[in-house]
């Protein structure tokens, strides 16, 4: 696997010590992207307090890059406002990891998308309540 050896130290560090793994009891928003057929599934759950991401957890099925991007995005947005979190994109996630092998940039770099879906889910739930 040439891809594997092309990972940065930062990717490997997050792969072996992923931050914020798990599920939140009674989450305010849930985002899920990907499907097992194309290789990766990411699920993000958030707890929102005062317009900020008070807590965030992820579960990921996928390669090293998929796990590392999931991990680092939770670190990047924890405590941030929802607007700030919405502004984080997949490219910034890859950059924060010191880059990803070209083949991994698309299929395994969906963590920000999962995050955005979780925020959208939170907002859609919040709306009817006013």
């Amino acid at each position, binding site marked *: *696997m040439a891809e*594997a050896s092309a990972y940065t130290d930062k990717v490997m560090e997050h792969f072996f010590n992923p931050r914020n*793994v798990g599920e939140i009891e009674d989450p305010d928003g849930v985002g899920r992207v990907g499907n097992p*057929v*194309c290789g990766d599934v990411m699920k993000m759950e958030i707890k929102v307090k005062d317009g900020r991401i008070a807590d965030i957890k992820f579960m990921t099925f996928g390669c090293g890059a998929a*796990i590392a991007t999931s991990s680092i995005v939770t670190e990047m947005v924890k405590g941030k406002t929802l607007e700030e979190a919405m502004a984080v994109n997949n490219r910034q996630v890859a950059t924060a990891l010191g880059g990803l092998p070209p083949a991994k940039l698309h299929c395994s770099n969906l963590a920000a998308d999962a995050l955005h879906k979780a925020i959208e889910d939170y907002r859609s739930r919040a709306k009817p309540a006013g």
Partner: protein
Amino acid sequence: MTMREVYLDHAATTPVLPEVAQAVHEHLVTAYGNPSSLHRFGRRARSAVDQARERVARAMAAEPEAIVFTSGGTEADNLAIRGVARRAGSGHIITSQIEHHAVLHTCEALETESFAVTYLPVDAQGRVRPEDVAAAIRKDTILVSIMAANNEVGTIQPLAEIGALCRERGVLLHSDAVQAFGQLPLDVGALNVDLMSISGHKVYGPKGIGALYVRRGIRLAPLMYGGGHERRRRPGTENVPGIVGLGMAAEIMQRELADRARSMAAVRDQLIRGIGETISDVVLNGHPVDRLPNNANFCFRYVEGESILLALDSKGIAASSGSACTSGALEPSHVLVAMGLPHDLAQGSVRFSVGRGTAAPDIEYVLSVLGPAIDRLRKMSPLYAERAGGGPRAGGTSLEG
């Protein structure tokens, strides 16, 4: 303290045996002549090439004149398939969906010329059905190309049956025996194989050398043009050190084949048993019995193959995964897909291939690392958290219960 290392990727490549390396070195440094030269240096090299040809021939019960040295298995496959096709000019080729890319992509390329290709399916254990071969033969079929054993899942193909029916129908049979050579007894006469590819580096010889067996009387169009080397079948000054290395490796493989196959199968079965006892939701891919003695290929449900390889590599264990990232999507192995495994399960495949030096403590170490690694990845997997608890759906042998 250096990390313990366990190499279980012998299907990818093998270490060169010390005595083989020594012979290669000698023919690089001392016996460096060109076999085409008239003088004593040339004659020495010629005699080394002749001896190697005899050794390779003997390992497959062939005549030495039938052996053509190539740059490896890929060139041997190309020479066999394109050689037959271009000589015929047009026609129909039969192969299988689980061939190595050296065969598959060669056939696909011929489809853009005046050739039609049938890619036969396989059963859930990865076996080509001889009756499918028989049914696919047409009036214009010029070649059947079926591997002797699969490189990913190790399934041994019913080559003798396919050989018999090809002979009966008057169609040439090529076999990519790159993985099977040195692991299974291969007798080209008994198998009725007309062309057979082998590679040096899969049998403890050097990289960059292989051979094609060409049954007497078969004419091939050359891939390259140049001198009259290898009976005009493969031009270019002979890779004497590589040829000598392949010859020596082939002889050693032949000599120790039965013992090695037994000892490799013993540690391989230790691994299969151990994984079945310590890890849940595992499927053994390929045929449970008719498989290469060095091969064990598993799908670990709910986790992806590359992440398992990374975890193993961090503990010094080398294995390989069938899946590979291509542009935009993670493609599961074409072999597992052909065997009917669902894509999500195929993503979690890992191949362990033991070697002649693999011992019981190596397997114990792998088992001590693998269980916790799978466990850790499953705890991160949304698919594991959501699992319905269903059994394996298709393809392999469940190791549960």
